[in-house]
């Protein structure tokens, strides 16, 4: 909503390319589309009747006989024997109206079904698509924009069905039918009655063009206005600190006024259309009376026929009133559709291998990890450069190094969250690109620095969808000291939690992330240790939980804790994307190299309470 460029791209009301892309989603419901289109001629036939009924009533009152200008309608209008003519005409009129109501209802209903089902499907598919997009996509696409695509843009698309296309086609069809009927009744009077139509058509074309310009201007301005608002909200601290409120408000008022003034222009055109339709309706009536008077005098045209002409022409002009509303709905729907399909155009990751086809799928992963000449970059500069190492099943290794040296990236690559630029990673001798991602990630647990809480209950946030029975979960909860946390919650495991408004301490969050990993019973554990410090008591719990967590698994840890690096079999020291030292703690200290210095900085001060 804040993107000016996107808003400027808008304009097309009909785009065959978008319709073509929308078609696969419409296809399952093409029956509804067909049904709606079938209703149109039926509705057209019924819409012809009401003016003729009133015309016939007039003829009856003036001449005493029920006559109509359209033969098949006259048959309907002739009452059964001994039936009061006026009552019969009343009944016909109300029945036709009831039938039209039913048709209108069916049309609306089927359009609603078509629209809502289609949008539901598109939304589902779009979310599915997003699940398959590579991590790189999320590094650059703002979350807010993604939310807009899946909500507001799709709601706009639904509007197109309820207000747009089909109603437009039906309106045009019915206008054509009215024109046809009056021409068959009397071509000369019809020609006179249609006299104003070309002028109105020209006015409508000019209006369409003008309103399009005005709408575009409005959209650009509202986008600017909202961007300014959004930025002010995000930077409110700075705004208030720098006492910028007054000037900011002045800027905002100026933009707001300019937005309002664009609307004023659009209102002018809209009002012009409405009043010209009014004028056209009344002028057409006048023309019909003026020429009808001659025909009545010279050829004995009935008053009923004159009425029928005025009534049809009144109905002929009415759809023109909706034009501007339909136009703007179509315009914003198409723009939204375009943005939605742009998101569909984002390349997904290659489809996952079928876990069943995976040769070793049934075997439990032993956990041998080999990196061979791995090279990787997020953008321009390499983050990992020719990294090789091997971890035997059940071994524990730690990665240490400065921020940005590539430690966490190593873990992410092993989980195949990003694709390598060079080299290969193998697990149990099998290239991870030849394993299904599902199997790969099931075999490992990735413990991130901070636990991300999903909207759901505590149980969901521990299990994260793992199919595990309660005893296993309870064991994990005990082993990771999450038990007191569960007991503190009024509703226990059923306690709803979410990322916002949660009041877990840093230590509790760490323990929770351990519990998450433990329930998965992984062969390989990837742990990005939290750097944040916790109090001594919690630290002891974290250490103990960590001990349980690492037991019997191949563990790769980005270490920030002295106890962790002391316990591991081997330490890799990373520097600028390369492994520059390796060995166990004592060996590395003896070398008095980079590790020794890092140790002095990062770990020496923990000695006091960690030892």
């Amino acid at each position, binding site marked *: 909503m804040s993107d000016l460029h996107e808003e400027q791209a808008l304009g097309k009301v009909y785009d065959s390319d978008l319709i073509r892309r929308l078609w696969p989603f419409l296809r399952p419901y093409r029956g509804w589309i067909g049904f709606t289109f079938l209703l149109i001629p039926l509705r057209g036939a019924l819409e012809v009747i009401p003016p003729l009924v009133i015309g016939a009533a007039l003829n009856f009152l003036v001449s005493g006989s029920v006559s109509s200008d359209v033969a098949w309608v006259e048959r309907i209008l002739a009452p059964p024997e001994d039936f009061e003519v006026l009552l019969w005409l009343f009944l016909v009129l109300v029945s036709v*109206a009831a039938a039209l109501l039913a048709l209108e209802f069916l049309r609306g209903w089927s359009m609603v079904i078509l629209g809502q089902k289609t949008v539901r499907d598109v939304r589902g598919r779009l979310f599915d698509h*997003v699940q398959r997009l590579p991590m790189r996509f999320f590094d650059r696409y703002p979350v807010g924009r993604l939310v807009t695509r899946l909500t507001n843009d799709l709601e706009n698309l639904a509007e197109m069905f309820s207000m747009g296309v089909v109603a437009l086609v039906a309106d045009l069809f019915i206008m054509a039918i009215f024109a046809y009927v009056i021409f068959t009744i009397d071509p000369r009077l019809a020609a006179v009655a249609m006299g104003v139509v070309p002028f109105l058509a020209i006015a409508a074309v000019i209006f369409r063009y003008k309103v399009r310009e005005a709408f575009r201007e409005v959209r650009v301005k509202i986008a600017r206005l909202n961007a300014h608002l959004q930025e002010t909200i995000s930077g409110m601290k700075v705004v208030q*600190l720098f006492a910028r409120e007054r000037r900011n408000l002045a800027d905002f008022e100026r933009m707001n006024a300019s937005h309002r003034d664009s609307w004023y222009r659009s209102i002018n055109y809209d009002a012009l259309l409405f009043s010209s339709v009014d004028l056209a309706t009344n002028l057409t009536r006048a023309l019909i009376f003026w020429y009808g008077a001659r025909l009545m005098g010279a050829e004995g045209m009935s008053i009923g026929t004159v009425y029928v002409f005025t009534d049809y022409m009144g109905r002929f002009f009415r759809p023109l009133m909706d034009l501007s509303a339909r136009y703007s709905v179509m315009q914003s729907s198409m723009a939204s559709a375009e943005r939605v399909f742009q998101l569909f155009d984002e390349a997904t990751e290659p489809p996952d291998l079928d876990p069943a086809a995976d040769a070793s799928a049934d075997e439990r992963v032993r956990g041998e990890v080999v990196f061979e000449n791995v090279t990787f970059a997020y953008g321009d500069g390499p983050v990992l450069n020719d990294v090789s190492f091997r971890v035997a099943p059940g071994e524990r290794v730690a990665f240490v190094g400065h921020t940005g040296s590539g430690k966490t990236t190593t873990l992410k690559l092993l989980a195949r969250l990003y694709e390598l630029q060079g080299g290969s990673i193998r697990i149990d001798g099998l290239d991870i690109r030849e394993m299904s991602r599902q199997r790969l990630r099931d075999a490992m647990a990735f413990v991130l620095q901070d636990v991300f809480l999903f909207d759901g209950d505590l149980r969901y946030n521990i299990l994260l969808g793992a199919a595990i029975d309660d005893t296993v979960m309870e064991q994990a909860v005990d082993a990771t000291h999450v038990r007191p946390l569960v007991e503190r919650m009024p509703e226990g495991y059923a306690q709803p939690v979410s990322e916002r408004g949660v009041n877990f301490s840093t230590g509790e969050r760490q323990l929770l992330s351990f519990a998450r990993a433990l329930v998965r019973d992984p062969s390989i554990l990837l742990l990005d240790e939290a750097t944040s410090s916790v109090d001594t008591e919690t630290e002891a719990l974290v250490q103990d939980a960590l001990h349980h967590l690492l037991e019997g698994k191949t563990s790769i840890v980005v270490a920030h804790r002295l106890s962790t690096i002391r316990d591991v079999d081997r330490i890799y020291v990373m520097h600028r994307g390369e492994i520059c030292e390796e060995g166990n703690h004592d060996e590395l200290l003896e070398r008095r190299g980079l590790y020794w210095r890092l140790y002095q900085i990062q770990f020496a001060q923990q000695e006091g309470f960690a030892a």
Partner: protein
Amino acid sequence: MGYVGGAKLPYVFGAVLTVGYAVLFQLIPLSIRRIVAALESEPGLVTVAVRDLVLLSAVFALFRLGSRIVMFRIGRQIEFRLRNDYFSHLQRLPQSFFNSHRTGDLMSRAVNDINGVRLFLGMGLLNIVQTPVLFVGAIVVMLGIDPALTLWVVAPYPAFILITRFFGRRMFAANMEGQEQLGRVSTLVQENASGVLVVRSNSLEDRERRRFEDENLTLYARMMKVAKINITMQSVVGLLPAVTAGLVILVGGRAVVAGTLASEDLWVFWIYIGMLTFPTIMLGFVISIAQRGFAGLVRIGEVLDTDPSIKDRPDVEPMTEIRGQIALRGLRFSYPKEGSEPVLAEVDLDIESGKTVGIVGPVGAGKSTLVSVVPRLLEVSDGQVFIDGIDVNRVPVGLLRSSIAMVPQDSFLFSTTLADNIRFGRPDATMDEVRDAARRAHVLSDIEDFPEGFDTQVGERGITLSGGQRQRVAIARALVLDPSILILDDALSSVDHATEEAILGDLDSARTGRTCFIVAHRISAVRGSDQILVLERGRVSERGTHRQLVEMGGFYARLNERQKLEEEIEEMEPVVAAAAAGANMADSEGVG
């Protein structure tokens, strides 16, 4: 609603046009009756009567044009003022409000809710004013022709109004549910995208798909309900003109047969029915959007009714200048969340005007909170924070904010030019002053390296600055104010050592006479302070000068040791690393 006030003239004008329109509206059926009567009895009069209809139609169209323009403009004007008020009120709300309301939510109120109000005002105002006038006029005219027939024709309308009200209520409830569910879908997508790393590494995609599928189905069901109510209402309303036109045939026709009514009188009724149908349908539509409009108004009202706590109190002290002497007395602060420990407890501090205080401590110790209470970004109760001996809550907010410049942690810059960002707090600053501030923040040469210099656009549609550049621009922005109190909240974290030293040297309070707070993680940033506080878990654990704290051998001394080694490593790193890797390190730039 206070928004209908303001200039009276448009309202009067709008009312005149609307009433004029309603009167002319009545003349059209009568004019047609005259034509029809002439058609049947005196063909010679037809031409004159038709000419009158043409003239009448032209005037009628003009009134319609005018009333639409004026009434719709009033709607836009109200929207304009509502949005201004929303914006201006937001700017007066305290930080605690923005901590508890997400930007997305506040934006949704500004976009969706104001839109709902706007839709209602645009269509609604005109219809609500106009339709009753049209109906009353029409009923008066029809009563003059045939009271009995009029009653028959008018009778269905109340029923239809009841029907639209019935559907309107349902629509409102359904709409609220739909919007609520849309909100849940937004949250789910937001969560899914923010937690994508967890989702992917735990293979939660299928689970997420199912969760989304559930929410999506609920959304579908709710939206479907809204649409179905809408369709039902629209189709039922369409029955109205047919029933009334039929009643004219039946009741009116019988009267014509009985000889009590002329057939041309029937035309008046039919023409009225044709002309009243559209306003009636619109009224139904307006009722359905009115609900949305009111709901929007309620949500905007929630924000507008939030008390802007940070404003001048009645007992405000009439000060004109702040010298910069600061005292904290037993400062205690906790966020309004149950059971949470206080962020700050028992903090005492005295700073003479023109002195510098450094604050260090672990993450989450309360350092940012401590400096946020000074410019009243966060509210504390009376008797805890004093500036020049006056309780901060009694210092005029305007003076407080113009005398204190704070460089917050996140160094937020606005999407405008660098020059405008730097003179953000003082838009009247000259280019020389801007340049001077940039020079003192050591960002001048960076800016001059950009092709467009100070006119370079920052942000989404401009260039992306590095973290260090952003921080330095934020410092320049503070310096332009020439404040009596300067607060750097970890504002040098992404700036390299040498630049940090240079900037701090320039800021030296001994020369500028400015009171300074420096929150930092690096000892080097606070070493020169007159007084250094170590905050741990919200309490002052150590206090003194650099020398005193180093001798004390506590947290500060350990931090100092560690950072000395770190500095050493920064100098030696490439050599050690190269030796260790046994390779020739090609890139050894950017050190020191």
